């Protein structure tokens, strides 16, 4: 997962200040922007990216609405920039800096966010795959296409894709041949029923 930083702030001085500080210790692309929609535009094709967003607190509501879709395929982290008078209540799960934060403090926050991403990358969702997912997996291992699986199980192609996504999340296996291997090794399918030379 690669990282990108967005700085969304009404003050150009603060934008430039954070940009200048961050660029000294982190080799991460930084974008100073004026509206949340600028992130959406920039990130339209993003997949498995980690966006670290520095923002003023009053924009939170707008942010969460704007990023619902983006959040499905990417990780978003927020760092709130506070005035000295503002309170830090209601921001328990986020990171906070103030206009007086030192370079070291900002650096620590970014490093922590990057580390958290590594941890989440290494943790698959786990858990057993469901009966329906096993049925889908068996047909994948037998070389069926999504359309053929949908017909065989009388479900929509969309549902097949959704099951396959879940299987990948739970097993941590991405390729079709890898999933076939998984199905054999966990005894979901009998190796004698598939053409090994073709499928693996």
């Amino acid at each position, binding site marked *: 997962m690669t990282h990108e930083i967005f700085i969304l702030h009404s003050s150009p001085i603060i934008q430039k200040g954070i940009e200048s500080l961050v660029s000294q210790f982190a080799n*991460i692309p930084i974008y100073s922007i004026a509206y949340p929609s600028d992130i959406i535009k920039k990130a339209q094709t993003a997949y498995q990216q980690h966006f670290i967003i520095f923002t003023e607190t009053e924009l939170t509501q707008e942010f969460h609405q704007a990023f619902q879709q983006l959040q499905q395929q990417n990780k978003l982290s927020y760092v709130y920039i506070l005035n000295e008078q503002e309170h830090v209540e209601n921001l328990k799960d986020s990171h906070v800096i103030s206009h007086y934060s030192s370079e070291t403090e900002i650096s620590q926050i970014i490093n922590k966010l990057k580390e958290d991403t590594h941890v989440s990358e290494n943790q698959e969702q786990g858990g057993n795959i469901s009966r329906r997912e096993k049925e889908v997996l068996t047909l994948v291992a037998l070389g069926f296409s999504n359309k053929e699986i949908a017909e065989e199980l009388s479900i929509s192609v969309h549902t097949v894709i959704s099951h396959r996504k879940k299987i990948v999340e739970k097993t*941590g296996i991405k390729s079709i*041949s*890898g999933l076939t*291997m998984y199905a054999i090794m966990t005894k979901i399918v009998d*190796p004698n029923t598939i053409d090994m030379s073709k499928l693996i």
Partner: protein
Amino acid sequence: MNLFTKENKVISIVRESIYLLPVLNRFDIRPGLHDATIQEICIEKNINVDFFLAIINTYAHQHYFPKTKLLSFSPLLIINYLRKTHEYYAQYVVPSIDASLTELLQSSKHEKSDIHLIQSFYSKYIQEFLKHNDVEEKTVFPYIISIFENPALADGRLANKTFEKEHKQIEDKLHDLKNLLLKYMDTDYNENLYNDFLFRLFLFEKDTKDHARIEDVILFPIARALEKNTRI
């Protein structure tokens, strides 16, 4: 993040990470290095020192990727480096992983154990990996060199990004291989031989990812820019 500079001693690269030794070898640098600085050894070996530093720092630091700097180098320099890396994989790394897996297989008591399945998967993966490199060597690199020397020869063949997609598919298979080994394999094997095989795969994955990154983000964009200029 402390980047290497030309004033640093070459030995400091190896001290920082022993895994950078093969990267040095690709520039024809071998121990004993005495106390030579990076600049001194680059002059002696006729290496472009800025290119050397860009590559070494890319491999040494996960988040360092001097895209603008790398884009400024000649494609000939990059291709020469990539070819040496392909040669290193084909001549040394793949045979050594093969040998490690053969030993692991021999430690398994049953003919139909999971490790035999792993071997089938690994063999297909390696075939795919070597074939991909072979196509690059025989058609893609010569094409890029030809359009660099004579832009009129460009035919737009790199436009559809086939090679980047293949890199992703090949990376996914290696990722799967590691996961299958770590999470789902039965325990009918010698653990030390298993560890050795897995260590080699992990190193191979890191190296090939950096290698593919240099192709995807540097070489192909340079080549596409050459193609585009011709069409204009």
